[in-house]
């Protein structure tokens, strides 16, 4: 009987951690493009192709240029985990290697949503990730790519 208060606290902490974890899992990101790029939707494999460098140009022939964050940026971690199923470290290393080989253009860097939006505005082939919240109020020259 004396252990009940501790068990209660323990349960409360677990519930809080679970809620935090659930909140984190739900905090997603969306793929955004320059509005001049007509690609409105992609499959998950299509997104993987774009961010892995396997797909190098959009359907209109425009060269794909990625906007990526650092290893610990939430968008990079989401991309690595939700799309590729690897760590952000592994994904970034792969991107760096492809750039070094000359297979893909050097990505643009941005560690927050505002920076990503600005980068995407800078060229027709630029693609990046922003949080759900920011995706609801994008400027006119940036649009969402729906992931099917």
């Amino acid at each position, binding site marked *: 009987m004396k252990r009940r208060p501790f068990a209660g606290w323990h349960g409360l902490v677990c519930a809080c951690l679970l809620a935090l974890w659930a909140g984190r899992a739900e905090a997603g990101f969306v793929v955004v493009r320059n509005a001049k790029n007509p690609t409105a939707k992609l499959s998950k494999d299509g997104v993987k192709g774009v961010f892995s460098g396997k797909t190098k140009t959009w359907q209109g022939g425009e060269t794909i240029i990625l906007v990526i964050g650092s*290893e610990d940026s939430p968008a990079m971690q989401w991309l690595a985990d939700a799309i590729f199923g690897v760590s952000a*470290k*592994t994904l970034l290393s792969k991107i760096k290697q492809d*750039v070094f080989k000359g297979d893909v253009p*050097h990505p643009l860097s941005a560690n927050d949503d505002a920076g990503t939006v600005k980068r995407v505005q800078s060229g027709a082939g630029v693609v990046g990730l922003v949080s759900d919240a920011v995706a609801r109020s994008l400027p006119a020259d940036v649009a969402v790519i729906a992931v099917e």
Partner: protein
Amino acid sequence: MRPGFSCAVLASALAAGGAARADVTLNFFGDINYSMQHDDATSNTFQASTLDVFATQTEGKFSFIGEMIIEADGTNEFSVDIDRLEVAYKPTPWLHFRAGRLRSAFGYYGDAYQNGKYFMTPVSWPLMYEGNGFDGIVPSHSIGVHGDAAYGLGEDRGKLTLDVELLNGRGTALDSVPVFHDDNNSKAVNLRLRYVGDGSLAGLVVGGNVYVDDVPAETADAAEVPDDAHVAEHELVLGGHAAYVTDHVHLIGELAWFRHRTHDTHMDSRTLAMFGEAGYSFGDVTPYARYEYTHFYEPDPYFVASGIPFVDIHLLSAGVKYAASASVAVKLEGAVDLDTSHRHVLGQAAFAF
């Protein structure tokens, strides 16, 4: 001109684009080592001998790569080398042209890892590509034009790729790359055909090379010919490679067969070089092993004059790579030459910023 001054000038030249175009970024690659070697006696040393400065820029279908290496290659003196200077044009997703100083499309290792030891699993290239302070016997660098085309085999079925190169080819020695003046008028031709897997075979690359060149005589001026100089030779190199590299599995095998035929006496010198390496990643830690074998059927005047001894190589190495971050990898490797008592342990921090 002092190397330090050259570095500053060249780095400024590369960075000048950065001032004009915000998207040009300089990347830095290199490695810091602690090396212990044992022959009859044991020696040890710290090494910080390589800095690789890399810049690239893409504008539409054109792109540029500039890579400058500041390196103390087997000595305590730094020198500057432009390792890559390429302009590329990609008119379609399946066709790609490059011109300039480039890594030859030979085998797997050369253009898969370039100079990025951070990306390699072991601490360095196989000896057939590059050794500690000397160039390997594979023709991995040259100046010329390159074209490659890809033919898709269907959704998730991979593609066939063909690389065709016309190059200045070999210089008078392995470490001599004719960047301005080719020592003979004949050009090297390099062909590489590959299957690149996708879907369930993603990560698989299987291919082969045919490389033909004329190696110039060591010097055209008879008064300066050293005793061990080589004469002009025709070169034929046949190569094969297979790699299966995924997020966890690392398997690479390559072989190259060389035949040098002297122009005057038609005497042949043949060499066979091969290696195989395997690793498996457990999270950020990748244990690995590599075996290398080189057999000289006859003494090769060109290789010998370039400082490659007429001695077969049986080298076994094993180690572990720890990916500390997306920019730094720490490795520890031990190697033993199975024919001699030579042993080598090397700790390395390789970086890619």
